[in-house]
Every structure is written in structure tokens, then in C-alpha cells.
């Protein structure tokens, strides 16, 4: 009787997802005070924080308008399909987790694993967009359009802008998985890949805020 141990990715043939080269060790994480690492690059963070601030301003304007018509906003929020919002939150959290693991795999030169994880995150984005399409169809069929009530004006602006970010993020993830397919080295792609990952996490955290403010708080 022989003891069989599970094969690691590097030991598997390439067509089964194994790597043909010796997996490189991830670069040592710079943790000293003077060498702390900016994910992506500084300019990207100006864009991300600016984008986040625009969303925050719209959500705060939404909460400000709500103060003048708490009952109307509550009634309108109850027209939303809350389970779709909740499931979409979980779907985006899962996609973010897959992106983190993909980043770790790419750092370790495990390109096949990284590519699969990125494709998984793209699948989550498709599920999110599909559920959003179902929700939009239901709302518009029920006569809830951007022009019908102030609540729905904000709802369509916030979720529409967010959906646009999901589409852009999915295109960026597609570019990343192509880089993995071409086995682009971490050193050559670090800034771009970290930037794509951070952009996707921003899409996730914005939805967390939108779900809390529009779907939950307004209904309370």
C-alpha cells in the first residue's frame, strides 16, 4: 500500500492546470515604515478616493432628502426586491475574495490558478449584472422609473452608476486574465494588476454602502 499525497499545481501537467516553470516565491512584503507599499500607484488612489467621495456625496444627498419624506422613502424602499440586493452583496463579496486569492496566486507565479480565480470573479460580475437586470425590469414594469419618485431617481442614479463601474471592472478583469494567460511576470504587471484588484474592491465596498443606505436604512 502506497501513501499518496495530493499533487501541487506545479507538479501537475500544464493541461490540468499545472505550471511549467518553478513557481517563484512571492516577493518579500515590504513592511518596514520606510518601505510600506502602495497597492497599484498613488495616482490611482486619487481616482479611487475621488470616485468613492462622489458616491458618498450622492448617498448623503439621498439621506438628506429622505429626512423630508421619511414615510415616502420607506414606502418606496419596500418596493425594492431586497433579497436581490442582499444576494448581490454576497456575490460581490465572493468576487472580491476571488480577486484577493487571484492576486496572491499571480504574485506566486501560479498563472493558471490566478486566471481561473479571475474568471470566477468575472462570473460573479455577470451574476450581479443579471440580477440587477431582473430587478430593473421588475421596477420599471411596476411603474417605478427615475422620473416617478425622488427615491427612485436616487435609486437609478446610484445603482446605474455602480453598474457602469461593474462593467468597467469586468473589462479590467478580462484584461487581467489575458495577462495570466500570457504568463506575464509579476514584476512587469504588478502596478496594473494591483490597480485592477483595488478598483474591483472599490466596486464591492461601494455596493456594501448602497445596500445599507438604499435597501436597508430607507426601509426602516
Amino acid at each position, binding site marked *: 500500500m502506497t501513501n499518496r499525497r495530493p499533487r501541487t499545481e506545479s507538479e501537475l501537467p500544464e493541461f490540468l492546470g499545472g505550471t511549467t516553470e518553478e513557481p517563484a516565491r512571492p516577493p518579500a512584503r515590504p513592511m518596514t515604515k520606510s518601505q510600506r507599499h502602495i497597492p497599484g500607484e498613488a495616482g490611482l488612489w486619487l481616482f479611487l478616493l475621488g470616485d468613492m467621495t462622489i458616491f458618498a456625496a450622492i448617498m448623503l444627498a439621498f439621506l*438628506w432628502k429622505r429626512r423630508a419624506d421619511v414615510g415616502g422613502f420607506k414606502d418606496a424602499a419596500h418596493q425594492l426586491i431586497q433579497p436581490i440586493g442582499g444576494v448581490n*452583496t454576497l456575490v460581490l463579496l465572493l468576487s472580491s475574495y476571488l480577486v*484577493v*486569492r487571484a492576486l496572491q496566486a499571480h504574485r506566486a507565479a501560479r498563472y493558471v490558478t490566478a486566471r481561473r480565480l479571475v474568471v470566477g470573479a468575472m462570473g460573479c460580475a455577470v451574476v450581479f449584472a443579471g440580477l440587477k437586470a431582473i430587478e430593473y425590469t421588475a421596477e420599471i414594469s411596476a411603474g417605478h422609473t427615475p422620473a416617478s419618485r425622488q427615491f427612485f431617481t436616487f435609486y437609478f442614479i446610484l445603482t446605474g452608476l455602480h453598474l457602469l463601474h461593474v462593467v468597467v471592472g469586468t473589462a479590467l478583469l478580462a484584461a487581467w486574465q489575458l495577462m495570466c494567460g500570457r504568463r506575464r511576470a509579476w514584476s512587469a504587471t504588478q502596478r496594473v494588476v494591483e490597480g485592477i484588484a483595488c478598483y474591483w474592491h472599490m466596486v464591492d465596498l461601494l455596493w456594501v*454602502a448602497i445596500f445599507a443606505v438604499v435597501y436597508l436604512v430607507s426601509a426602516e
Partner: protein
Amino acid sequence: MSATTPDRVSRVFVGLVLATCVTWWLGSDSTLASGGFELAATLSILIAFVKIFYIGADFMELRAAPVILRTVFLTWVGVFAAVAIAMVVV
């Protein structure tokens, strides 16, 4: 702050999923029927911003980022959360 390890990322992910379930439950009609609307709303916002903090710290790897970037992100989270709660409660 330390670098984010795979184990920690998995724990954070599970925590985020559980927190989402809690906020969802807080916003459900059966929970609201028992009263405490302002408390439920405040808790929903608080939990949401704790989640956002962890997404930034562990998923965006801001734990390993320079102090200035972490400070700006934390300020964004804190100010947005405080103003949002004030608008709901006050």
C-alpha cells in the same frame, strides 16, 4: 499593521458574509416589527462601514500601505459613517 495572509483573508471573508447576513436580518420586516427602528438603522450603517473598513484593510491591502493612505481611507470611512448616522438619527 501586518501584511494580509491567505488565512486572514479567508477569515475576513467569512466575517463579511456573516455581517451581511446580520444587516439583512436587521432590515427585515420581522425584526422591524419589534420596534427600535433608529437602533436598527444605526447598526446597519455601522456594520456596513466596519465591512468597508475590512475590505480596504485586508482586500485592498491597506494594512501594508503608507500611513498617509491608510489615514485618508480611514477618514473617508469615519466621516461618511458619522454623517450618515447623524442624518438618520438626529
